[in-house]
């Protein structure tokens, strides 16, 4: 192979377009490396703490394994040998729950986002308010006043069909896609603490507490606004010609969505999935409330490492946090190339 010489540039030479001067580079890398240290040091500390025992932590600080303290695997053993049942159960629960919740949320959310970006809706506001009122009254009568749920549901459905049209035709104030979109997105503003008790009561009524289903559905709903938000803009960026063509070629809306839209939205889907995945994987408060034993997830295991009177079991907690990070990091590395692009078109470009 012939050697191809690229001319060396002197430090003092003016940088070419799109290039940086040496000084800029030095400053830039210094800043980036400082930030890298700021990001990584707590994680380093987390990792070495997982190999410490009580004395190493309490009489610390010790920084370097083998140098100023003798690392031990006791915390790892406790989680994965002695208590492997509890650890693995929580781990698998977390995996099942966050995967299913993410899947459900991304599927339903992107369907809604797609519909909102393509179909013009004009629901009647009064009908909707009436519907919501009935729904709320049904829920309240079941949940608080203990009316039999079948009876309440039947009454509500009947009332809706008899009265909705009559009421709806009186006023013609209609909502539009932007309003629906905003309404869905605004659900994210709710702090979970507002809704956690009623949600608990709902699942209690249908005997689904401490099951995967309860947590999966709740997570899916809680994260759906994010999916709709990100995917709505993403779908808007896909040329309509393709879908119209598919429609003419005989595809149904589902067919178009599955064959054309979803494959074209890979990047957006990947980014959204990752984000929702992270949020479901890490959620604590709702999981705490909706699970007792069978469906306990990893964040609860982490929180449980604060054993109150015995202080925080830093070493075990570190192990739990580390094993929680690993799958997400792996997923992020796999999806890495999509994230940036995906988030962009999705979140932010209209």
């Amino acid at each position, binding site marked *: 192979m012939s050697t191809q010489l690229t001319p060396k540039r002197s430090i003092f030479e003016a940088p070419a377009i799109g290039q940086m001067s040496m000084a800029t580079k030095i400053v830039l890398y210094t800043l980036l490396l400082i930030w*890298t240290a700021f990001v990584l040091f707590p994680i380093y500390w987390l990792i070495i703490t997982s190999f410490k025992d009580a004395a190493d932590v309490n009489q610390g600080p010790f920084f370097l394994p083998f140098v100023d303290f003798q690392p031990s695997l006791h915390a790892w053993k406790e989680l994965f040998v002695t208590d492997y049942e509890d650890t693995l159960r929580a781990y698998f629960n977390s995996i099942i729950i966050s995967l299913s919740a993410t899947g459900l949320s991304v599927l339903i959310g992107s369907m809604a986002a797609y519909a909102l970006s393509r179909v013009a809706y004009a629901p009647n506001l009064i009908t909707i308010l009436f519907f919501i009122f009935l729904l709320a009254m049904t829920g309240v009568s079941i949940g608080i006043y203990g009316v039999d749920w079948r009876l309440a549901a039947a009454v509500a459905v009947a009332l809706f069909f008899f009265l909705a049209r009559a009421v709806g035709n009186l006023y013609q104030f209609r909502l539009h896609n932007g309003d629906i979109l905003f309404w869905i997105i605004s659900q994210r503003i709710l*702090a979970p603490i507002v809704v956690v008790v009623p949600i608990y009561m709902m699942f209690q009524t249908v005997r689904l507490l401490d099951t995967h289903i309860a947590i999966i559905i709740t997570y899916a709903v809680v994260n759906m606004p994010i999916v709709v938000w990100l995917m709505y803009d993403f779908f808007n960026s896909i040329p309509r010609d393709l879908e119209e063509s598919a429609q003419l070629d005989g595809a149904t809306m589902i067919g178009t969505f599955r064959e054309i839209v979803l494959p074209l939205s890979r990047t957006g889907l990947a980014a959204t999935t990752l984000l929702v995945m992270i949020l479901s994987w890490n959620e604590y408060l709702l999981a705490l409330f909706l699970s007792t034993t069978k469906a306990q997830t990893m964040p609860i295991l982490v929180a449980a490492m604060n054993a109150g009177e015995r202080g925080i079991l830093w070493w075990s*907690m570190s192990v739990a946090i580390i094993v929680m990070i690993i799958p997400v990091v792996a997923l992020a590395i796999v999806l890495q190339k999509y994230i*940036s692009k995906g988030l962009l078109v999705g979140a932010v470009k209209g």
Partner: protein
Amino acid sequence: MNEWLDKHMGRLFLAPAVTLILVFSIFPLVASLIMAFARIRFSAGGFKVRFVGWRNFEKQFFGSEQFHLIGTFTQISLLGWIFGLSVTAALLWWIWGYVRRHFTWFGFVGRLITLAMGLGITWLFAGTLLSGNLFGTIGTTLFYVLVGCAIQFVIGTALAYACSKNIRGKTAFRVIFFVPMMITPIGVGYIFRMMADTTKGPFSNVWQWVGLGDFSWAADPWAARIFIVIADSWQWIPFVFIMMLAAFESVSRDLTEAAELDGAGPWQSFREITWPHVLPIAATVMLIRAIEAFKIVDLPNIMTSGGPGIATESVSLQAYYAWRALDLGSASAIAYILLFVTVVICVSFFNLVVLARVRKQP
């Protein structure tokens, strides 16, 4: 049948999401609204609900919990008066300008609500912080939101801009900088408790060495708040970073190069070309971040339990503690107040910045 399905597919696509959200957020919302006007006690076979009218809210704004939610008010200092009156004047001028230019009832009422919230927050600050009084959880929450989001935005954007340049190891930086976001917020809380421990944490020696051996961040209100903001920023800068990186990378290189050829320096090129391009994106990112920041609960709960005193307690945490003490009425009332504040602030922002863009769509 098939054709009927096809025709209504548009609705069927939207239906699952809307139904789920209706069931899982409208019903709970209504239920907790009822709770907010009641005292609830658990008993065999369910609850005893006793309606108490506005008492749960009154208590928060005027009663025994006033100091807790909005702060302590004694007298307003000169600085407070100056600040309060000038912001009030500015806000009134703004609404007057709206009324003169293009008036619709819908827009006017919306702006009136924004105005009321703006005035409320202005006088909250004038009466507490600027007058040397203690502020309550709303003040603390706003501190987390404003300062936290500002820090996260500036650093996140700066990092993203740096990484959008043609540098080596971009991919590695991107993955590394993203990691903190993947850690469960509870974990982040505990990690930063380790970091900040002045007796056995990694920086305890540094702490002693700079002569702060007897100073504890956890005992000083502002130090504690700042530590929580640092932890929060550590976790959420990655989010801003990754979004803004995407934004910067979407700026066409042609544009910046053309600007450079036209003689623009790096700063000018950034300000004239790049910044206007990413501005709408930045607005959305900050909106998302602010919405989440209003809900901050895990970090103060774990790092300080809201202490010292009530210095680091957020509104969300206040509701959480009330809920934990089985005071469901107060918990719901507080949560609703938070909801109201968040909705007004975010909707105002959404309307002024984001919605114009969304409404253009069909």
